[in-house]
C-alpha cells in the first residue's frame, strides 16, 4: 500500500501507469479506454491485459547474458526392449509432480517400450494408480495417448521407420541438473563453446540453472512455468533430412487441473510447426494426451515431393550432412528444403496458455543446402556446390551454432510475486508488458565481429513485433533476410530497402532468419534490437512508432515498445568463411528457388475461400471461420471444412474484415503468396514460401485484407487444422479442421475423444463444400 501510494505522488507519467494498471484490474477482461487517456496525461493501454505492471525487482536492462538454446540431442533407436527400465516416476500427490532426480533417471534410460505403428494401448498409463486415486478408478487406460487403431497409426511406418529418437517430459519448472550436457553436439569443447576463449562456454554445463527471467527476479514456481524437461534453457532439436525421428513426449504435469497457478491445461498435443509430417504426428488439437501418458510423434524428415520428384535420389542438393564431410542423398524436391521450425503445444482451447507457459521448442533442420557448416564446399566459391554456407561455424561437420543463434521472442507479464501471469478471460488477445528473449528479460549477447545468422521466432500469444537493429546512437544496422518462416528464400533481401527500413512485421509464429555482419563495428560496440510496433489491445498491432521517438524515451505508450536486447561486439580472431549475402541479392545468385508450378495452375487449381471474422460481423459475436461463403463456424473437431485431395494444386483465399488482424497458419504445407489484395506481395514474400499469412488490419503496410496462397499437399494424409495464430483467437475458437485425403478416399477420419481411460471416436461430418471433384 505504501509503495503504491507513493507512486501517486511522483510524476504525472508514473501516475498514469498506475491508473492504467488499476483501472484494468477493475475492468478485467475487457478493453476499456482508461481514465488516464481521457485525462490526456499520456495514453496508457491495458497492458499487461487486465493486470498491473509487472514489477522489475530493481533489475536493470542488459545486465544478464541471454540464455542460448539447449540441444535435446538424439540417439539411435534401440533395437531390443529394455528389460529393467523403470516407468515414469509417479507424482508426489494429485497436484504434484515427479521427483526431479527420478525424472532425470527416467529420461536417461533407453527408449522403452519400443515404439509401435499403432498406438501402444497394451500397457496401462504410468499413472493409472494416481489417476484412480485422484480422479476415478479406471476401468482401462493406455500408456500412449495417441488415438488407437488405424486412423492414427503411423503412415508409411516401415518406409520412414525412425532411426533416432529423443524423449522428454513436459513438467513443472525445476532446476536443470545438466541432464543434456553430454547431448550438446559441441560438448563444450569446440568453437565458441570451448572452455578457453569461447564466448558461449558458460561453465560448460546448464546444471544449476533455475527458471527465472533475471537474477533479480524470483524463481518461477513449479506450476507457473511448464517446459520440455521442466527446465531452461529453452530446447532445440537439431534434425537432418533422411533421418526419421521418433519424438516421445511424456506428460508429467499434475493430475489435478487446478494445480496450474491460474492458467494452462495439463493435457497436451505437440505440433511441429510446419513439418512435412503425417497427420497422426502433426499434433492435431483434438488428439491430446493426459498426465502419466506419452505420445509418440514420428517425423519422417522427408522432402516434399518424395513420391514424384528426384525419386532416384540423385540430385546432390537433395540431401543431408553425413557427419563426415559428405552428403547423404534423399528423394524429393530440394526446393522444398526447410530450415527453421519450432514445435509447441496445440491443446484444444489451450494453445495460448500452454505456449505462454513455456511449452515451446525450436527445431533446426540441416540439409545439403543448409548444413550449419561454413567453409566446406561452399556455393559462393562454386555454383555447383550445394552448401550455402550460412554463418554457423567450422568445428563440427554440421549443426555448428557458434554464429547461428536462435532467438525466441515473446511478451510476458508476472504478478506482484514475480510469478508468470495470464488473463484467461480476455479473448481479444493477451498482451504482456515485458519482452523476453529466450526466456531472459532484456539480456545482452556477446557476438564476434563477423557475420551471424539470427533465427528469430515470434513466440508470443497475441503480439506482433517490428524489430529494428540499431547502434547506441540510433543508426540503423544493415542486414539481410535469408529465410522467411521455415524456408530459405530465392534471394537474400537487403534491409533497409525501398519497402521497409527495419525487419518487417513479424506475427505470432512467424520466423525470419537474418544475417548481420558485426564486423562493421569495433569491439566494444553495443547494438540493440528494438521493438517499434505498438499494440493497444490484443486485436492486432496499432501503429509503427518512429524509431527516434522510441529511442529518445519520448514514447511512453505500449510498454513492450523499446529496446529488447543488446549485442556486445567482441573481437574476432578467426576467418569468416560464411557466405556474403550481397552475392545472393535479387539479380544475383539464387539460394533456394521456388518449386516449379504448371503454367495453367491459376486456371486449374481448386479454389477455396476462408473468411476469418466475428460471425455476423459484429464485435459481440464469437470468432469464426467462414468456409467458401458458408456459415461462420467455431472449432468443431468433428466437422471437416475442407478435404483437399493429395497432389492437387489448390489456391486458398484467406481474408478478414477491418479492425482486427489474424495471422493465419495452415498446417502441413508451405504456401506461396500469389497476391495480397490483388497486388504482388512485398519483397520478402516474393521468392519465399510461408506457413503464416497475416490478414486483416494492416497498420504497417506489410500485410493485407486478403491473401491468395498456392498450396499442394503430398505424401501424407489425415486430419490437420488451419487457424488464427493469435492463439487467444485460435482457442476461442477460430480454428477449423481440414483433411488431406488420398484420391478415392470417401470415409472421413472420425474425431478422437480423449479420456483418462483411452481415446474414443465419434463420427465426423464433411461440410457441403469440403470435397471437390
Amino acid at each position, binding site marked *: *500500500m505504501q509503495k*503504491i501510494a507513493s507512486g*501517486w505522488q511522483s510524476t504525472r507519467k508514473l*501516475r498514469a501507469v498506475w*491508473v492504467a494498471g*488499476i483501472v484494468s*484490474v*477493475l475492468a*478485467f*477482461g*475487457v478493453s476499456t479506454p482508461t*481514465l*488516464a487517456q481521457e*485525462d490526456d496525461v499520456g495514453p496508457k493501454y491495458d497492458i499487461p491485459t487486465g493486470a*498491473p505492471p509487472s514489477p522489475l525487482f530493481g533489475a536493470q536492462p542488459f545486465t544478464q547474458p541471454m540464455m542460448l538454446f539447449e540441444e535435446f540431442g538424439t540417439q539411435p533407436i534401440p533395437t531390443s526392449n529394455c528389460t529393467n527400465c523403470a516407468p515414469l516416476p509417479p507424482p508426489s500427490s494429485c497436484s504434484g509432480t515427479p521427483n526431479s532426480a527420478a525424472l532425470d533417471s527416467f529420461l536417461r534410460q533407453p527408449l522403452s517400450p519400443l515404439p509401435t505403428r499403432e498406438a501402444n494401448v497394451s500397457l496401462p498409463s504410468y499413472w493409472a494408480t494416481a489417476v484412480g486415486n485422484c*480422479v*476415478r478408478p479406471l*476401468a482401462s487406460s493406455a500408456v500412449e495417448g495417441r*488415438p488407437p487403431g488405424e486412423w492414427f497409426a503411423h503412415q508409411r511406418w516401415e518406409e520412414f521407420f525412425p532411426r533416432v529418437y529423443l524423449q522428454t517430459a513436459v513438467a513443472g519448472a525445476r532446476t536443470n541438473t545438466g541432464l543434456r550436457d553430454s547431448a550438446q553436439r559441441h560438448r563444450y569443447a569446440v568453437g565458441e563453446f570451448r572452455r578457453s576463449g569461447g564466448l558461449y562456454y558458460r561453465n560448460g554445463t546448464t546444471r544449476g540453472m533455475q527458471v527465472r527471467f533475471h537474477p533479480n527476479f524470483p524463481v518461477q514456481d513449479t506450476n507457473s512455468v511448464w517446459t520440455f524437461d521442466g527446465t531452461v534453457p529453452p530446447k532445440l532439436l537439431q534434425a537432418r533430412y533422411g533421418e526419421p525421428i521418433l519424438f516421445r513426449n511424456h506428460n508429467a504435469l499434475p493430475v*489435478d*487441473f*487446478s494445480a496450474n497457478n*491460474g492458467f494452462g*491445461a495439463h493435457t497436451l498435443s505437440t505440433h511441429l510447426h510446419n513439418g512435412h509430417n503425417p497427420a497422426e504426428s502433426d499434433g492435431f488439437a483434438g488428439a491430446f494426451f*493426459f498426465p502419466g501418458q506419452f505420445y509418440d510423434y514420428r517425423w519422417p524428415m522427408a522432402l516434399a515431393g518424395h513420391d514424384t520428384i528426384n525419386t532416384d535420389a540423385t540430385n546432390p542438393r537433395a540431401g543431408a550432412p553425413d557427419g563426415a564431410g559428405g552428403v547423404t542423398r534423399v528423394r524429393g524436391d530440394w526446393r522444398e528444403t526447410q530450415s527453421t521450425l519450432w514445435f509447441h503445444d496445440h491443446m484444444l482451447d489451450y494453445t495460448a496458455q500452454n505456449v505462454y507457459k513455456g511449452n515451446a521448442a525450436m527445431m533446426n533442420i540441416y540439409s545439403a543446402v543448409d548444413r550449419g557448416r561454413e567453409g566446406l564446399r561452399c556455393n559462393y566459391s562454386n555454383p555447383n556446390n550445394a552448401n550455402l554456407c550460412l554463418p554457423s561455424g567450422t568445428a563440427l561437420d554440421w549443426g555448428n551454432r557458434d554464429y547461428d543463434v536462435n532467438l525466441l521472442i515473446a511478451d510476458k507479464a508476472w*504478478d*506482484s*510475486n514475480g510469478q508468470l501471469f495470464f488473463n*484467461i*478471460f480476455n*479473448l481479444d488477445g493477451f498482451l504482456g508488458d515485458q519482452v523476453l528473449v529466450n526466456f531472459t528479460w532484456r539480456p545482452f549477447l556477446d557476438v564476434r565481429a563477423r557475420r551471424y545468422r539470427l533465427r528469430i521466432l515470434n513466440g508470443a500469444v497475441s503480439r506482433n513485433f517490428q524489430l529494428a537493429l540499431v547502434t547506441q546512437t540510433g543508426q540503423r544496422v544493415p542486414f539481410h533476410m535469408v529465410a522467411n518462416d521455415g524456408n530459405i528464400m530465392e534471394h537474400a533481401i537487403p534491409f533497409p530497402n525501398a519497402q521497409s527500413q527495419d525487419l518487417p512485421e513479424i506475427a505470432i509464429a512467424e520466423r525470419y532468419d537474418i544475417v548481420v555482419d558485426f564486423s562493421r563495428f569495433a569491439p566494444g560496440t553495443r547494438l540493440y534490437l528494438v521493438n517499434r510496433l505498438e499494440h493497444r489491445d490484443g486485436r492486432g498491432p496499432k501503429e509503427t512508432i518512429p524509431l527516434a521517438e522510441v529511442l529518445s524515451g519520448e514514447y511512453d505508450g505500449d510498454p513492450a515498445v523499446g529496446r529488447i536486447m543488446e549485442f556486445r561486439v567482441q573481437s574476432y580472431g578467426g576467418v569468416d568463411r560464411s557466405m556474403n549475402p550481397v552475392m545472393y541479392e535479387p539479380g544475383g545468385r539464387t539460394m533456394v528457388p521456388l518449386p516449379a508450378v504448371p503454367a495453367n495452375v491459376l486456371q486449374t487449381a481448386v479454389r477455396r475461400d476462408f473468411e476469418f471474422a466475428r*460471425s455476423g460481423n*459484429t*464485435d*459481440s*459475436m*464469437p470468432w469464426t471461420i467462414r468456409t467458401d461463403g*458458408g*456459415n461462420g*463456424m*467455431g472449432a*468443431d473437431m468433428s466437422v471437416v471444412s475442407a478435404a483437399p485431395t493429395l497432389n492437387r494444386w489448390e489456391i486458398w483465399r484467406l481474408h478478414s474484415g477491418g479492425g482486427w488482424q489474424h495471422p493465419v497458419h495452415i498446417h502441413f504445407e508451405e504456401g506461396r503468396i500469389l497476391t495480397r489484395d490483388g497486388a504482388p506481395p512485398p519483397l520478402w514474400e516474393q521468392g519465399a514460401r510461408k506457413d503464416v499469412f497475416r490478414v486483416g488490419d494492416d497498420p504497417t503496410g506489410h500485410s493485407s485484407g486478403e491473401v491468395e496462397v498456392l498450396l499442394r499437399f503430398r505424401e501424407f494424409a489425415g486430419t490437420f487444422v488451419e487457424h488464427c495464430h493469435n492463439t487467444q483467437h485460435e482457442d476461442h*475458437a477460430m480454428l477449423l479442421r481440414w483433411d488431406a485425403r488420398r484420391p478415392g478416399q470417401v*470415409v*472421413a*477420419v*472420425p474425431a478422437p475423444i480423449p*479420456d*483418462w*481411460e483411452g481415446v*474414443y*471416436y465419434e*463420427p*465426423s*461430418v*464433411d*461440410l*457441403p463444400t*469440403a*470435397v471437390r471433384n
Partner: protein
Amino acid sequence: MSWDRAVRRVGYALAAVVAAMAGQSESASSQEVRWGRSYFPNVVLQDQHGRSLRFYDDIIRGKVVSINFVYTTCTDICPLDTAQLRQVQQILGDRVGRDVHMYTISINPERDRPEDLRRFMRTYDIAPGWTFLTGARADIDLLQQRLGLRPVDERNLREHETSIVVGNEATGRWIKRSAYESPQLLADLLGRVLHNYGPPVTSTRETYAVAGEVTDRSRGFYLFRTRCRSCHTIGEGDRLGPDLRGVASARSHAWLSRWIREPDVMIAERDPTAMALLARYRNLPMPNLGLNEAEANQIIDYLRREDSAATSTQP
C-alpha cells in the same frame, strides 16, 4: 473536486484493493484465489422465484456452471441459444442442478422481472435445475466483463454477446463457447471435461471402423443440423417446435420459405397459420435466424428429400 483529484481518490481506494489482492495471493497456497472470490463480484441477483442469490457464494463457488446472457423479448439468436442449452440439459439429465449448474442471466433486467423469467421458462418448457436470473444492470454488466464478455447498451440488446461461458470455479478452468456449437460438445464439456474428465464417457460410441461414413454433404442438411435441429425433428415427434415430417408438402413453398426467413414479421402481421402455430407451441415464436432465400430453399429441398427417402424405404 478536480478530475485529477477524483482520479487520485479513486486510485487510492483501488490501490487498497490491489494491495489486498496481492496479500491474499501471497498467503494462499497455489493460486486458488486468482479466479476466485477476489476476482468474481459477489453481486446479488434474483432468480425466477424472486429469491436473492449472491453470484460468487451461491451461484458459482465450488461448482461446474454454464452461464449465458439473454433477454426474454429477443426474437433472433436467443431462442436458438436457449433451445441449444435445453438440449444440453436433456443430455445431462438429472445431473443438472446436482453437479452441473445452468444459469441464464437477463441483460435487460429492468424489463425482465422474475415473472418474465418464469414465463420465458414455461415457453421453453425448461426442466428444473436450470436457474434464470435478473438483477441490477450495473452488476450484470460487471459480471459480463469479468467473464470476458462485452456488455452492450440497452439500446443495442440485439448486438449482445451470445457466447456461453462454462467453467469450474473450484479448478479455475473457464472456457467460452459459441451458441452454434453442438449440444453434445457442450454437454461433454460440462459433464466430463470440466470435471477433470472425471465421469466416464457415457454416450454411445461407435468404433472407429464403422464411424465416419461421409454422410449428407448438402448445405440444406448442414443448415438443418445447426439451425433447426435443436427445436425440430423429422419424423421423431415434436420438440420445442413441430415435427417437420411432411411439412414441405403440407405448406406452400412460398409460405414455408417466408416463414423460415421472417417468422417475426409474419407473426406481427398475424398470419393465421403462424398464429395457430404460436398458440399450439406454448407461444414460443419461431426465431428469425437471418437466413436468406437461397438458404431457406436449401432447407426445404432437404426436408423434401428426407420425406421421399422415408417414403421409398417404407415396406
